[in-house]
């Protein structure tokens, strides 16, 4: 405003008073409007609990979900949030206990043989409508998981059962599945091929029971709402407002009366925003929250209860081994391997609390013969050695008959951590090896599409476990594995994977994993980055919450409130 308009003070003050009256009216109007909207929002029926994190009187805890559970039909469910919810309300033959060991659930006892298994079901296991849980419910649940019309993405985990794969491909009828209910409480399973870890598989949610009459009555909407699901776990879902909240009550019909101690678990908030959950925790509205590095010091000053656990996932650079790709060359991969140091990445670059530098495809928490696999079979990952790396690089150039490598494409996710990592590697490879790296940042689905079509040289990838056996990682680079997206092909590795799959002897199996680990490192199939850890805070009165890498996480089935 270059021109100052001469104004009369009397006009200004009169107009100012008028404006004040309008402001007062606006204020009143907004208050009225808010009352109206508040009434309208009560019609949408999505009231969040105003409860405190821990409520002793009602024996209830309030927590959050990272996202709306995408799929509570156990035969179709694939994601972690749904898995956590299902772990509270539906019980399979076996489950993981608070020490992450297999424990009897619907099956009272079981016997796993070389070619089959028998499960004896307890007679007091009931569905939430009072009917008993029978062996027929498992047969139906497994057949549903394999039914080609059902198109389950996790059907492969049922391939251990005889004819499972053929049925899923539509080559054989559903009836030919190698499982049958001898009577209501005895389940007999035949394996496709010898298998030593079937008991670990049945704890997975795809192996959960589904009752046929109820399933059919929902007409394709099984698991879509709280009343479209039948429960047999320690808790039942009592209300589910989509996208807003989910509430569980203790299941009075559950066979183990003493197991669940909380009367209710209120998942009152659904948000993936880490700051929001931490703020809710500070405000005493939720009973646990994850910590990020910037909040760690603050949390320690406040003397909060801080814990850490490995969430099971391993992250690494996967090479493209397809013919014609520079990264198909052993010496180039060796050069890249010897030019990097995952400890530097984790401790100096990403600096995320709870993360461990990666050394192997097999994470540290996997069990071996007696103790931990990684203690019994150390990774012996080669230390950074720039001299040697340059020697391998020269060798690679010689073998490929080129003077200079073209820029290598590093496919990366679009989240901040991936960005930091890919820039770190870009700089390291340039500095030590003089290699140019082109970062190709893509959102989730596009990155997967490019991985599948092989449109990359290196990709920031990761893997999380499905069941508590090293094989859930060990078969990843087998030539037939669909998730081997760099298409690594090595008959020797395939041989050891077959041993790990079929061998009955624990020692021989673990030896096979040791060999797989050695090949992956010697041939630089991947460059491990880190194992993901989660640092979190819990309410001082909440006890017995279980975090785990495999199975429902977090698990409140054994949790209680300390008064």
């Amino acid at each position, binding site marked *: 405003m270059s021109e100052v308009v001469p104004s009369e003070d009397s006009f200004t003050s009169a107009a100012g008073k*008028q404006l004040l009256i309008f402001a007062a009216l606006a204020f009143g109007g907004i208050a009225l409007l*808010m009352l109206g*909207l508040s009434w309208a929002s009560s019609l949408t029926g999505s009231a969040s609990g105003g409860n405190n994190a821990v409520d002793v009187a009602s024996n209830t805890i309030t927590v959050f979900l990272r996202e709306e559970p995408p799929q509570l039909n156990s035969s179709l469910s694939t994601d972690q949030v749904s898995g956590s919810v299902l772990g509270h309300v539906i019980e399979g033959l076996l489950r993981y206990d608070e020490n992450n060991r297999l424990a009897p659930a619907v099956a009272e006892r079981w016997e796993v043989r070389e070619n089959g298994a028998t499960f004896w079901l307890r007679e007091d296991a009931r569905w939430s409508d009072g009917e008993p849980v029978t062996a027929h419910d498992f047969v139906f649940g497994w057949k549903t998981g394999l039914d080609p*019309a059902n198109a389950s993405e996790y059907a492969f985990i049922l391939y251990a059962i005889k004819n499972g794969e053929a049925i899923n491909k539509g080559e054989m009828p559903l009836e030919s599945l190698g499982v049958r209910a001898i009577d209501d409480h005895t389940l007999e399973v035949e394996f496709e091929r010898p298998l030593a870890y079937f008991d670990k598989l049945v704890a997975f949610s795809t192996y959960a029971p589904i009752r046929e009459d109820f399933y059919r009555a929902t007409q394709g909407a099984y698991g879509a709402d709280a009343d479209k699901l039948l429960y047999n776990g320690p808790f039942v879902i009592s209300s589910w407002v989509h996208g807003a909240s989910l509430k569980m009550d203790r299941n009075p019909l559950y066979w183990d009366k003493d197991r669940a101690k909380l009367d209710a678990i209120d998942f009152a908030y659904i948000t993936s925003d880490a700051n929001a959950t931490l*703020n809710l925790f500070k405000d005493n*509205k939720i009973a646990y929250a994850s910590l990020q590095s910037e909040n760690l010091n603050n949390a320690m000053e406040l003397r909060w209860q801080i814990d850490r656990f490995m969430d099971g996932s391993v992250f690494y650079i996967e090479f493209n081994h397809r013919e014609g790709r520079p990264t198909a060359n052993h010496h180039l991969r060796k050069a890249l391997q010897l030019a990097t140091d995952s400890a530097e990445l984790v401790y100096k670059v990403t600096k995320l609390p709870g993360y461990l530098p990666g050394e192997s495809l097999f994470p540290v928490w996997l069990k071996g013969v007696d103790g931990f696999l990684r203690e019994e079979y150390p990774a012996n990952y080669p230390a950074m050695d720039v001299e040697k790396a340059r020697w391998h690089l020269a060798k690679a150039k010689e073998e490929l008959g080129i003077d200079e490598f073209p820029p290598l494409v590093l496919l990366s996710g679009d989240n901040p951590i991936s960005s930091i990592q890919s820039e770190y590697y870009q700089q390291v490879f340039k500095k030590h090896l003089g290699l140019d790296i082109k970062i190709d940042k893509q959102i989730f689905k596009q990155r997967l599409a490019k991985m599948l079509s092989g449109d990359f040289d290196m990709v920031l990838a990761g893997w999380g476990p499905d069941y508590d056996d090293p094989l859930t990682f060990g078969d990843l680079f087998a030539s037939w594995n669909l998730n081997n997206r760099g298409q690594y092909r090595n008959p020797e590795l395939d041989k050891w994977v077959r041993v790990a799959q079929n061998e009955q002897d624990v020692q021989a199996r673990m030896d096979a994993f040791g060999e797989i680990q050695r090949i992956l490192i010697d041939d630089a199939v991947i460059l491990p980055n880190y194992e993901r850890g989660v640092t979190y805070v819990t309410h001082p009165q909440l006890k017995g919450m279980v975090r785990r890498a495999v199975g429902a996480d977090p698990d409140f089935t054994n949790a209680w409130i300390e008064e």
Partner: protein
Amino acid sequence: MWQYTLKRLIQGVITVWFIATATFFAMHNVPGDPLINDRSVTEDIRANLEEKYGLNKPIVDQYFIYMGNILRGDFGISFTQENRLVNDIIREHFPVSAILGILAVVFAGLGGVLWGALTALYRNRLPDVVIMFLVILGISVPSFVVAALAQLALVNVNDVLGFSLLPVAGWGTIWHMLVPSMVLGLGTMAYLTRLMRSSMLEIVNSDFIRTAKAKGLPPTKIFTSHQLRNAILPVITVLGPSIAAITTGGFVVELVFAIPGLGRYFVQAVQQLDYTVIMGTTVFYGAFLVFMVIVVDLLYGWIDPRVRLE
């Protein structure tokens, strides 16, 4: 008038059809598809999934099937929320976004007009300088920063008081909507304040105000009927698109305050390439935006009779 309304509505339908068509083909041309997931599936399962969602048909067939379904009001089933109809997602979550949006727009509109009038009235004096400084902040600080800071402030206030004055996040009561809607409306309010201020200053200098003063009208009458009423027109013009922008742009605020609105579905669907949800929310929001613009145009004619003549 009726003819004009009808003409605008027909134009609106064509616009929405164009939005739907462009989105449909753009979406299908992005690399990847909703069926790709962390775990690769066999050819057979993939084929079964494609069959289930009708993705095995040629793209043009899919387009016509989809358009036919839209005409019947059926947006299909979500790929990521596998058991939910897109219609249900919109029906359950849009009201939440709308409530939040209405409140934010009212905050922004009333606030913008009042602050704008105030700054114009006290131009170049202390209230003007202070408010215009805040306006620059409001326009330039992105909403995710404001939202996070507002939430942190709430936590600290509750902490100091020792009880929950206002909830930190969540949805359901009058207290849950107060802070999020203010945060959501803040940017628009700042923008409207500036608009209102310059519009007021223009009018203060115009001939008809001098005439009004010369003929001895009382100051309150000049201010209300001549200055405010005329200065408000540009604000109303941008209010329509602002309503749509606020209602659709609530993603960050909804995420931070854990509000079950439609905004997060709108954004996450794109990240997840959830075809049906992308289409459903885009068409729905597109229609909503077009509708709001038409409403504002009609409202404009009511406030300023000169427009109706054209």
